[in-house]
């Protein structure tokens, strides 16, 4: 059971967001820019960074849903997503993404662990400044989303099919659009 009175019908971050729409809006706007906005990193690559950081933080809801969104962008390749979670160095991803995941893994622990050598390694493999910036911020942002979901003791279902179905929808429609349904229905419920 969650630590505060969240809707039992909305697992993970959705219950928390419906509880407080004023903070839900910037939280959704940030993830929308970072993971779906214009970028030279593909949406699949950015979702893999989010999934990897969430997996290292052991936040079941976040690494499951973002893993499924990543898979949806990567032709349904759930095995690749699992490989990135367990040992990304062995995964069939670009050397550039591996260098960015190394940076993301350090940010997940402590931003001060990122060294000039890590950044140079990513640059040598073709990473631009803005790609490095976005990698750092995706990793930092998921340290927030993960703590938010875990810290409120939200419901985090085990059912993979649930994440697969929702992952496809988020991959197709984006975060803000999908969030409007529960933010709006909550406002509606609150008004009655």
């Amino acid at each position, binding site marked *: 059971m969650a*630590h*505060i*009175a969240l809707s039992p019908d909305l697992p993970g971050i959705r219950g*928390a967001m419906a*509880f*407080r729409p*004023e*903070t839900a*809006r*910037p*939280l959704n*706007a*940030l993830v929308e*820019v*970072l993971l779906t*906005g214009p970028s030279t990193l593909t949406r699949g690559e950015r979702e893999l960074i989010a999934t990897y950081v969430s997996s290292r*933080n*052991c*936040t079941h809801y976040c690494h499951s849903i973002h893993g499924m969104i990543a898979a949806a962008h990567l032709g349904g390749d759930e095995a690749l997503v699992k490989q990135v979670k367990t040992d990304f160095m062995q995964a069939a991803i670009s050397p550039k993404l591996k260098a960015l995941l190394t*940076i993301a893994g*350090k*940010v*997940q622990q*402590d*931003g*001060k662990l*990122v060294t*000039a050598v890590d*950044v140079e390694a990513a640059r040598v493999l073709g990473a631009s*400044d*803005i790609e*490095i*910036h*976005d990698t*750092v*911020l995706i*990793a*930092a*942002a998921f*340290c*927030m*989303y*993960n*703590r*938010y*979901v*875990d*810290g*409120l*003791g939200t419901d985090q279902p085990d059912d993979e099919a649930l994440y697969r179905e929702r992952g496809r929808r988020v991959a197709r429609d984006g975060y803000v659009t999908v969030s409007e349904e529960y933010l709006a229905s909550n406002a509606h419920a609150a008004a009655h």
Partner: protein
Amino acid sequence: MAHIELPEGFPGISGGFTYRPETAKPMRELAHVLLHDENTLTSGERELIAAYVSSKNDCHFCQASHGAAATCHLGDPLVVEQVKTDFLSAPVSEKLKALLKIAGKVQQDGKLVTAEDVEAARKQGATDKEIHDTVLIAAAFSMFNRYVDGLGTWQPRDPEMYARMGRHLADEGYKEPSIKQPVGQPVHAG
């Protein structure tokens, strides 16, 4: 030197914000709702939670700027120092102590927060919304701190700069930049 080419003279998070306005906007809005908008927790209390988490994450820029903002709200710089070093002996309410305990656990890992921690805060009068906001402030500063440190931003040691920032943050909040022009460069009046 920062890890990427951030605009010169913009310390800490203002470097990242100036570099990438698209992500700065929702981050500013989030900070504004959490720390400045109306709330049953005072802005001073919420800035103390932010400063405490930033101190536990050892992020100089964030703990100095939010410590300065807390000081502006509370009028006493000693409270901030006491909260950072040992909040249980600081002159703050029992409710805030219970919330700081939750914030300290979220800073490490959200899963460490127990039903007992939450019940203890409730016994001191904390509402669900106050507990929610405490968890999210602590989570958000786990992001802001990593962003500032992970980019290797310039984090000056000049207390006067943080005092000026703190004044702006306490009075105006987070929607507009507290640092509008490069710091440490000549300012041409009029």
